[in-house]
């Protein structure tokens, strides 16, 4: 299997190299290296959103959880419908804000809208978190799988460096456009491989599988039902909840955590750079909420029931029957990991280059120099991510665990920019700080540090089986609501209102009937699909509540419930996209405005002094003073040294 797997991966790497070279040879403005000229083709966005959902969920991780916990773990895939709706709504408005106010990155959008540098720092930190530890953790897991699949021929560390090199070269050559074009193909490959491999496995496997046979889980775990609404457990690491770790609220909170896939800087940047058109609607309604969620809900339990020994033994069995299918299963999981690594490292690095290097450190670079800076940054980033993955996998895993929940804490801030002008800066900052603290103390990062330094805490990871993202978001939203009510007439309100008036003027949407019904249906759907009401699905179709008789379906009632609410959810996202209008963007009627203070185009003195010390040239302040005839080398070079 090893030569064929390596051969296919080499072809994937060559594909990336080919398109990177084509993009680079196409020429164009060198500055487009960083943002693809804000004209990414719609089809790439359409394919990439479900690919990111697959990759963020983690194909291998998801299949492993379903094999271990059964349908309760598979239920999380219903949440992809919510991810699709959130992506469409936030992308749509952020895209418009980008065109209206010329805010090119998520950090700039938040920083200028709220007129606060704290948001820039928060978004840059988040970009760094996704680009390094989060990507390093995925890269490490991918290389570990590769090592197992090759029987140790390619050790984990070697795999990490090979993968990092194969991903870095196309990114460095072709920039953002080449990366997105290549990843879009990989996303489509995953979307075809998952159902294809599942079908092939079922046709060729000996003996009955799911749904005729139950998924083989440990004793005491409910494979075909949700184990209650809430589990009174102290958290992972402290106590093991009986029945499984996915009660209804656990599922709901895991779905909320998935929103981090949308609210992280790189994904938002992807949406900002899309061409006008209908791509957001198609990506969300048909490909993510429809196809990706459906494929996962239908395929994951079937495939997971065939892999009690794990993914690699199943792929080896398949390889004996059909070599390309066995390799296809491994390719599916490896591609998912590599897609996430490439996307988050490239996107995060380009954002950091724009928001930090080109804004504060070297603000006077011309377009060619900007491209060079981005290329150097990409080289360093891929080197750093490989270094972390190879030599600090534990630290990467601990830091990666907070990436998604911390991204979710940006939700109130983006709700303010996109929809709610009454959300104030102070409220968002206070809520964000609370949310981040609570996330840290319900994840290993905070728990390990606190317990090592001070005392043992009575709770572990995800207390009461509620994901840290929801713990943080509940307190975050509560504080934002209260503080915004108290600061309703804050002095910065007119600035915020200007943007929302401009949005309303551009969209000139007349109030349509049925919006109340839509939001009511969305809340009801959320409650029943993945909220506490999902518990009804355990027996709703096998032991109906309106009769004493039992129905013999031949498939678990919960599976029917999942499929039903997946379809209903897709209809609701369709409504949002095509009836309310979130699925479409247009350049028509956009009248640019100037929002807040322009981004500072001057290097702060302390940064200039630091740079001067590294680069061994006079600092900007020093050179200015030298021009004026004042001798000031002591201040420029000596203050920090």
């Amino acid at each position, binding site marked *: 299997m090893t030569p064929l797997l390596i051969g*296919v991966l080499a072809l994937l790497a060559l*594909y990336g190299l080919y*398109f990177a070279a*084509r*993009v680079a040879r*196409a020429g*164009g403005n060198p500055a487009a290296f960083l943002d693809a*000229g804000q*004209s990414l*083709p719609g*089809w*790439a966005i359409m*394919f990439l959103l479900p690919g990111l959902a697959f990759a963020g969920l983690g194909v291998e991780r998801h299949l492993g959880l379903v094999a271990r916990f059964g349908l309760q773990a598979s239920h999380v895939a219903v949440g992809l419908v919510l991810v699709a709706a959130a992506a469409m709504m936030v992308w749509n408005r952020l895209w418009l804000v980008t065109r209206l106010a010329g805010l090119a990155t998520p950090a700039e959008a938040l920083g200028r809208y709220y007129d606060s540098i704290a948001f820039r720092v928060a978004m840059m930190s988040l970009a760094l978190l996704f680009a390094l530890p989060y990507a390093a953790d995925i890269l490490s897991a991918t290389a570990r799988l590769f090592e197992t699949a090759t029987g140790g021929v390619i050790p984990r560390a070697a795999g990490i460096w090979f993968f990092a090199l194969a991903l870095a070269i196309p990114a460095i050559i072709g920039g953002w456009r080449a990366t997105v*074009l290549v990843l*879009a*193909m990989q996303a*489509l*490959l995953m979307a*075809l*491989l998952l159902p*294809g491999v599942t079908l092939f496995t079922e046709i060729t496997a000996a003996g009955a599988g799911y749904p005729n046979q139950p998924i083989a889980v440990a004793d005491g775990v409910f494979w075909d039902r949700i184990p209650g609404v809430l589990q009174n457990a102290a958290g992972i690491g402290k106590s093991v909840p009986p029945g499984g770790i996915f009660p209804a609220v656990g599922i709901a909170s895991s779905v909320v955590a998935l929103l981090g896939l949308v609210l992280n800087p790189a994904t938002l940047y992807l949406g900002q750079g899309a061409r006008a058109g209908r791509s957001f609607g198609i990506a969300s309604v048909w490909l993510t909420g429809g196809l990706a969620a459906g494929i996962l809900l239908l395929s994951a339990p079937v495939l997971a029931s065939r892999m009690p020994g794990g993914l690699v033994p199943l792929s080896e069995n398949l390889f004996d*029957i*059909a*070599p*390309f*299918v066995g390799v*296809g299963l491994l390719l599916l999981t490896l591609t998912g990991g590599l897609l996430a690594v490439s996307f988050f490292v490239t996107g995060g690095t380009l954002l950091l280059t724009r928001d930090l290097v080109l804004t504060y450190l070297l603000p006077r670079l011309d377009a060619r120099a900007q491209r060079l800076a981005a290329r150097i940054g990409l080289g360093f980033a891929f080197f750093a991510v490989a270094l972390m993955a190879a030599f600090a996998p534990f630290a990467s895993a601990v830091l990666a665990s907070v990436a998604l929940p911390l991204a979710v804490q940006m939700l109130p801030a983006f709700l303010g920019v996109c929809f709610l002008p009454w959300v104030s800066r102070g409220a968002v900052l206070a809520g964000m700080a609370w949310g981040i603290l609570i996330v840290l103390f319900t994840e290993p990062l905070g728990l390990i540090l606190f317990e090592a330094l001070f005392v043992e805490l009575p709770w572990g990871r995800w207390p009461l089986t509620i994901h840290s993202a929801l713990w943080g978001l509940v307190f975050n939203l509560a504080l934002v609501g209260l503080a915004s009510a108290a600061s309703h007439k804050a002095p910065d309100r007119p600035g915020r209102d200007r943007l929302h008036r401009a949005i309303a003027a551009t969209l000139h949407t007349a109030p349509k009937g049925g919006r109340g019904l839509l939001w009511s249906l969305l809340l009801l759907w959320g409650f029943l699909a993945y909220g506490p009401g999902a518990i009804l699905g355990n027996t709703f179709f096998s032991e109906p509540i309106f009769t004493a008789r039992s129905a013999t379906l031949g498939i678990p009632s919960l599976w029917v419930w999942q499929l039903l609410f997946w379809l209903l959810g897709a209809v609701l996202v369709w409504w949002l996209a095509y009836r309310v209008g979130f699925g479409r963007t247009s350049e028509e009627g956009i009248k640019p405005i100037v929002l807040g203070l322009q981004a500072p185009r001057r290097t702060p003195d302390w940064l200039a002094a630091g740079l001067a010390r590294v680069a061994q040239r006079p600092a900007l302040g020093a050179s200015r003073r030298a021009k004026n005839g004042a001798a000031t080398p002591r201040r420029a070079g000596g203050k920090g040294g």
Partner: protein
Amino acid sequence: MDRLDRHALVMAIWCPASFLALALLHHGVTSGGGRWIAAGFVPILGAFVGHVIVNAVLKTEFTAGETALGAGAYALALVGLLLTALLGTKELVAAIFLPAGIGLAALLSAVIIYLVIRFGPRGAFERFEVVRDNNPRPASRLPHRGGRR
């Protein structure tokens, strides 16, 4: 850049479909039998339909390179099938000739249907009529001189 974007989209459709087709055809030829070979043509047909949809949405046509590659690959497959029929063992021929032949015929039918729908029966025929098109003078393209373009 638009041409490059279209090229990337076409490749994004064909590459995964080719992998699936290769997997199914390989399994069919080595051990699976006729139904897997026939199934191997489904991703190819799907990719062709996807390519036609791309052309319709982006208001483009198959490029000369794409046409040449497609025709070349088809001719190669046809020659391969004929050589197998002539030189292969009886079992091999019995196993693959019918499904592969039906698959290739289905592909040809799909192309013909596309041409007829896209250009009409006469226009589709004229796509292959190169003899009348060998006069480089612009005047030869006037309708009364026989040119129809």
